[in-house]
């Protein structure tokens, strides 16, 4: 599949920089002065016990929450406030902890929805659904079919996602995110509630996405084993603070981490 990228960041360079970001709901502090970066082309994991502020971190990155302090630089642009759809248009896609698919639509339509930003035909053509509008529709359908083939979900192409088993829904959601041709892909517990086999499949897909599309991936995951295998570097959060940051090996041997997390049975 051909991939067009606008940003000129070389692989290995910093794609996203989070600089002492803090976030609070009313009085409750969700994130406190956390800083880390994500390099182009890497698989970056964010781990930590429940309520460590992992999901909040993702929500800050894709503009769903706005940090009370600190700044976020993405693709060289530092932004004060940003709306989620702006994050989307800058190439940040994301999946959710508890699948957030469009229940009333088919697998294909869900993935097609991921192409919305790339579709240009105006209302008039849409109303006719002929000529340019149809051509555009077809062109994007082709793109989505590549993803469907890639994720091996041909057999459920036209099934309403509501009817699908959980594991497949997660896969469709990944497909929907991929349809956006993201520069940065945020995965919130992509393997939560999956059996071993499904986890293996999903990890394979995550790696393939990273290889095949060169997509930078930041993921939250509870299964330590999976995280260690998948990711190039890991950030560890606890109570909204960063307690460690480094390669799987480094993190594994970090005493604070062991106490805070690995020590505790999950």
């Amino acid at each position: 599949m051909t991939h067009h990228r606008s940003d000129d960041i070389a692989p290995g360079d910093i794609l996203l920089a989070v600089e002492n970001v803090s976030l609070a709901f009313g009085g409750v502090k969700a994130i406190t002065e956390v800083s880390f970066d994500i390099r182009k082309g890497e698989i970056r994991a964010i781990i930590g016990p429940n309520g460590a502020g992992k999901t909040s971190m993702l929500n800050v990155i894709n503009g769903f929450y706005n940090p009370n302090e600190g700044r976020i630089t993405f693709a060289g642009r530092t932004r004060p406030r940003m709306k989620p759809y702006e994050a989307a248009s800058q190439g940040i896609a994301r999946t959710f902890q508890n699948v957030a698919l469009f229940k009333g639509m088919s697998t294909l339509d869900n993935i097609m929805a991921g192409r919305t930003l790339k579709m240009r035909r105006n209302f008039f053509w849409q109303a006719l659904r002929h000529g340019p509008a149809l051509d555009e529709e077809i062109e994007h359908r082709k793109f989505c079919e590549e993803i469907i083939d890639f994720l091996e979900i041909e057999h459920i192409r036209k099934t309403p996602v509501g009817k699908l088993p959980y594991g497949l829904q997660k896969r469709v959601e990944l497909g929907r995110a991929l349809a956006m041709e993201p520069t940065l892909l945020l995965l919130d517990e992509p393997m939560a509630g999956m059996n071993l086999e499904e986890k293996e499949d999903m990890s394979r897909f995550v790696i393939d996405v990273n290889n095949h599309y060169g997509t930078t991936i930041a993921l939250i995951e509870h299964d330590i084993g999976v995280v260690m295998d998948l990711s190039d570097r890991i950030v560890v959060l606890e109570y909204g603070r960063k307690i460690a940051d480094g390669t799987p090996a480094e993190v594994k041997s970090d005493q604070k981490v062991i106490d805070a997390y690995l020590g505790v049975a999950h």
Partner: protein
Amino acid sequence: MDILYKIFIDPFMQMGAAPDLLVQALWEGLVGGVLYALIALGFVLIFKASGVFNFAQGIMMVFAALTLVGLYEWMARHGVPAPAAIALVLTIGVMYVLAVSIEKFVLRPLVNQPDIILFMATFGLTFVLVGLGELIFGGEPKQMITEQLWLPKGSIDMKILGGLVSLQKIDIAAAVIASAMVAGLAVFFQSTRIGRALRAVADDHQAALSVGISLNQIWVIVWFTAGIVALATGIMWGARSDVSFALEIIALKALPVLILGGFTSIPGAIVGGLIIGVGEKLGEFYWGPLLGGGIESWLAYFIALAFLLFRPQGLFGEKIIERI
């Protein structure tokens, strides 16, 4: 320029010029507000307990009032002694039957359906009650049996601020009864077992079951209570105007009240009711003429709407933090 004057200066000049009229307007507004609040109360009760947005609350009020009057007239015609009292009792009975059948035929089959579906159902319920009411009692307006129910008639005129302010006795009664009712409900909720159960249901159904009351019972109770409230409201409104399906439209005014007060807060309903009542009255009184009158038909909604844009969660509703 002139129009701006008319809108922003003139009305207040008038208020200053004739404070007695202002008092009069405020009073009427307050009473109207109290009654709005009562209807809203019915919504809140049901919404708290069963999460159902009961669109039929308004028509329940009309239906109750019609039943009362209808029964009374029938018995009066057949020379039954003390028809009013009996009619009142019977009507309460009818409201109970209504509550039971709603629970049995509407809520129970639709349990665990999304809110929107339940809302639609109460919407259907509205049609049923309208049809039924018109079928039994006919479409034409009826006189509320005010004095038969020992409600005062006439008005008290008093000299205030160099003008005559006349308070309809019925309005005073309405205010009193309404407050009594609210107080009663408050007590009911705070200090009775069932009341606590109802509050529990509002937050989570398991909790309610642990109190040892089945959901179905609770729903019956709630809808019955709402029915009583509807009846009272119906009597009051009926006494002020006639008893007719036009009231249904008035009852819809309870919706803006809810928006102000929030769907789940009883005090909210009351405060909201008063705000709407007063605001509407003043608007009608001082600004209405500018627009050729009749603006009370929509003013309430606009007040609520304007308000909503600043506090989407209402007066007393707590801030919604969207979690993903």
